[in-house]
């Protein structure tokens, strides 16, 4: 896919410029297969992630939805036996093409994990860290501004503005997760992947995260894996339902706008899953 790789150009400040997507898509997976050693965990996934929308990946345990999510920013590369076949196009450029730096991919496609994982550092440093390791060259004032805007975007500024020097661990679970989202935002990604971002949180914190995700889609594209179907129904614009096939490989069963999936799904398996009569 040399021709598509060539559309990625790197400027002196390390940022990557790309042609604006003409098709309104942030990511396009085609023929995506993910392996752990000889085991094929995900097979033949074709999925288009719309820009500035929230796409939920749902499905039973083992259906490959988290593997697909991690394939979207090459996070699976960190597992020695993992490999991917097929394409994941970011603005038309395959992120798996030779020569593409996975670290750069992960900067542009950030990830928020199931359990909040702040660093054992101050709230301020948690947010500033990502920008620093990505070559942030601004002044102290610029960094202060970046930290504040990131914390504001993550809807946690008002709760932490008077204690930026305190440890990230001093915050509640829900606050920690929003801090981690602020840390992700500080790197200025285009896409934010979220792997069950609220499953470790209480219901109120969960709703705050969902509200936050709705705000974030104005500026970012969100892909969220969730076990909570009500969360997918509440918080997403599009829903992809995955299932495990008889060969234990996960595959995409149905993908549509969320309203259709939860009111009139086309596939009987989807119907069974979302009505709780699966298996």
């Amino acid at each position, binding site marked *: 896919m040399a021709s598509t790789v060539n559309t990625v150009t790197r400027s002196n400040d390390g940022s990557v410029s790309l042609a604006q997507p003409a098709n309104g898509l942030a990511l396009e997976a085609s023929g995506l297969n993910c392996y752990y050693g000889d085991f094929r965990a995900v097979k033949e996934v074709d999925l288009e992630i719309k820009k500035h929308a929230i796409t939920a990946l749902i499905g039973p345990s083992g259906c490959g939805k988290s593997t697909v999510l991690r394939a979207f920013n090459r996070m699976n590369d960190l597992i020695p036996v993992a490999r991917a076949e097929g394409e994941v196009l970011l603005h038309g450029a395959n992120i798996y093409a030779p020569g593409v730096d996975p670290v750069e991919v992960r900067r542009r496609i950030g990830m928020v994990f199931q359990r909040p994982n702040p660093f054992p550092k101050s709230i301020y440093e948690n947010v500033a860290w990502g920008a620093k390791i990505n070559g942030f060259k601004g002044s102290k004032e610029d960094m202060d501004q970046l930290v504040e805007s990131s914390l504001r975007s993550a809807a946690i500024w008002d709760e932490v503005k008077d204690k930026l020097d305190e440890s990230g661990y001093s915050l509640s679970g829900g606050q920690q997760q929003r801090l981690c989202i602020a840390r992700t935002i500080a790197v200025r990604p285009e896409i934010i992947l979220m792997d069950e971002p609220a499953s470790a949180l209480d219901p109120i914190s969960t709703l705050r995260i969902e509200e936050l995700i709705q705000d974030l889609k104005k500026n970012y594209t969100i892909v969220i894996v969730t076990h909570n179907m*009500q969360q997918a129904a509440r918080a997403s614009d599009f829903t992809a339902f995955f299932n495990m096939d008889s060969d234990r490989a996960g595959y995409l069963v149905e993908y549509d706008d969320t309203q259709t999936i939860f*009111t*009139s799904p086309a596939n009987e398996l989807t119907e069974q899953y979302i*009505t709780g009569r699966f298996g």
Partner: protein
Amino acid sequence: MAREYFDNELDKLKSAVLVMGSEIEENLVLVAGALIARNTAVAERLIAADLVINKQRIDVVMNSLTLIATQQPMAKDMRFIAAVIEIAGELERMHDYVKGIAKTSLEIGQAGTLLPSFAEDFPRMAAFASDMLSRSMVAFSENNAALARSIPKWDDHVDYLFNRLYVDIVEYAGSAPGLIAHANQLEWTIHNMERAADRVINVCEWVVYMATGEYQEFDSEYEAPPAIDRSNVGE
């Protein structure tokens, strides 16, 4: 089995709607018979029955809302519950028409004679409306969109009888002094029966939605009475 409790509760909702439907099927025919036979006892019983139907409707709606709040219904379950709430409302309104006819029947009382064509055609209107309702309840019970789609055309028969009676009643009103009030009562009864049949079409629309996920509006608009040639109406 997964969701056994929920499935049982959905079955209860279905049964409650079918009970309402079967009572109204019967009462549509009974009220026409009571009017023709001047049977005030039956008319009074049907007026009282309306309170029961109203309560059944409220129970169905409240139980549906409880399931929405506690069971998070999705897809076909959600469509079923939405249809149940709407259909229960249509049935309740249908029985309001039964009650309206029963009240008019009491106002007419046992005196006088009815138009011969009214005595013949009004029970036929009721039979068509009741039969349409019966079929719609089968379609609801079987989740059968094809059957639901086949029912609205029967409303043409009801509309035909309505139009014919309307003209007869207007002519009757003009045939002699002092008949206006009585003719007006008769017009109200045919109007109520015609509307009851229209409500069945709404039921069919919700059955189609429940079964397919697509809401399809059938032609169920109120049938405007035919134009009357006033030159034939006596002064």
